[in-house]
């Protein structure tokens, strides 16, 4: 038990998830403001769930909204996180237990996520608190990340099970929910047969996600499916803002499944090339999980890496848990651990896209103009591959 408790994980994972959950809480604030203020009107129809909580909301809606706003920003930024997180979690739980008209499943998920993240110390990294207290580099307890994974699984399992009923399987729910304007599902395709098949696919997707996110071999395809599912419902169904809020918090929680140990992947790059340097700068900026270690060509001899100088001059390389990758493959490896791209990066390894990517990388590498040298003689542009 002690050993299990002491296992460590990348502290940045909880920190980045915290930002996603915080943003979702702020999105929900925008959606709930009108409703809460309307419920505060004395002649509004009220449907209290827990009477004292509801009374508090009706009487103090403006104050609660302000507290929500301030704690939401503070939690997202990781400022006084234990306090701001506790307050935000309390506000979110009040929202889903106050009045039935304010309840939503995504608000429920945000409440649980904020509570878990606060309890697990998600303010220690990727946060203002982390910078001030110098805790950014500290690891997190691995079991806290695992608990977030369990939460995602619980949600998908129950969501799938709840849909196994005649009403959903008849396709009537999807048919009523699909947009008829904007990015619309073609009306001609909306039939019993097609909606029945779509209903089965939705259930199968949720069950697959509950299982595949835990499987190392299938995880990246679960990321892609999750993006397709949650992105697809935002684009094709009514209540886009609510669905977008749900997608933001759920896809942020996916980061808990990412295999991204701190500086667990090494990127070998040509530091004598300004073009390459620009890419590396962007990779560093977007490496919010601090999962990448950058080794420039000039330091390659003193490193213990198996990449040779000739190989490193030829193309970008990554060395990590999935072996050594070069060129376009190395780019894909980098993208697979960046929070903004890990959901769709696996698509780049599909045969037709991979082939196009490799040709494009080779063409860019051949035609790039690298600025070499920075001494008194100035910078000499050189097309190394002409």
């Amino acid at each position, binding site marked *: *038990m*002690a050993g299990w*408790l*002491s296992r460590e994980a990348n502290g940045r994972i909880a920190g980045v998830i915290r930002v996603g959950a915080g943003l979702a809480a702020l999105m929900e604030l925008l959606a709930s403001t009108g*409703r809460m203020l*309307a*419920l505060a009107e004395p002649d*509004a*129809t009220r*449907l209290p*769930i827990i009477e004292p909580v509801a009374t508090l909301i009706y009487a103090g809606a403006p104050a609660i909204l302000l507290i929500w706003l301030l704690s939401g920003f503070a939690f997202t930024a990781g400022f006084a996180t234990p306090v701001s997180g506790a307050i935000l979690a309390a506000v979110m739980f009040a929202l*889903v237990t106050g009045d*039935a*008209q304010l*309840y*939503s*499943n995504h608000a*429920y998920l945000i409440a*649980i996520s904020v*509570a*878990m993240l606060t*309890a*697990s110390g998600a303010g220690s990294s990727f946060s203002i608190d982390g910078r001030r207290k110098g805790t950014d580099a500290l690891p997190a*307890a691995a*079991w*806290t990340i695992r*608990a977030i994974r*369990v*939460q995602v699984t*619980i*949600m998908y399992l*129950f*969501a799938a*099970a*709840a*849909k196994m*009923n005649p*009403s*959903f399987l008849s396709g*009537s*729910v*999807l048919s*009523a*929910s699909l947009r008829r304007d904007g990015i619309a599902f073609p009306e001609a395709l909306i039939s019993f047969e097609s909606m029945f098949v779509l209903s089965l696919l939705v259930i199968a997707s949720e069950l697959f996600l509950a299982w595949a996110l835990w499987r190392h071999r299938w995880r990246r395809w679960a990321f892609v499916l999750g993006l397709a599912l949650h992105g697809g419902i935002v684009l094709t169904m009514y209540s886009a803002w609510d669905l977008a809020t*749900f997608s933001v918090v759920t896809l942020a929680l996916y980061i808990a499944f990412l295999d991204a140990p701190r500086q667990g992947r090494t990127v070998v790059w040509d530091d004598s090339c300004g073009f390459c340097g620009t890419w590396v700068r962007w990779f560093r900026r977007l490496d919010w999980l601090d999962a990448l270690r950058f080794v420039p060509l000039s330091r390659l001899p003193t490193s213990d890496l198996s990449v040779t100088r000739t190989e490193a001059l030829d193309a970008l390389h990554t060395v990590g848990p999935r072996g050594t990758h070069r060129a376009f493959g190395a780019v894909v490896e980098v993208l697979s651990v960046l929070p903004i791209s890990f959901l769709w990066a696996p698509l780049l390894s599909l045969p037709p896209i991979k082939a196009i990517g490799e040709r494009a990388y080779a063409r860019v590498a051949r035609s790039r103009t690298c600025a070499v040298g920075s001494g008194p003689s100035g910078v000499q542009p050189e097309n190394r591959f002409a």
Partner: protein
Amino acid sequence: MASSPTGVSSIHLSGPSRRVEWGQRILLALVVVGLAAEVVVAATAFTGARPNRYGWQMYSAVPYVPRAWAVAASGEKRPVMVDDLFVTTRAEIDLVEFLIVSGCQVIQADSLNIELPDGHIEMVPCT
């Protein structure tokens, strides 16, 4: 305190470490209890009509929106736009139960006629 052969004393710093470990154990217990409670609540929600709150039952069924009429003493019937009675409608809200229990408080009428899912008309006197 133990002394090594070199004479340097070593202090067994067990206090803070043990406190941290106990803190972690308590935190773990709270999280486990919380997740377990969530599962119990979600499982309980399954026993009710779909969709239900706290059960991750989003988009699991089409809610029944009853037709209703406000009936005056003269017998004149006026259709009620049920959705318009609320700040916002949620699929989890049992509109039939609401109309039966609280309909007379929010609708000006001498009685209410509410169409139930089986087609039966429930008459609720308001006086």
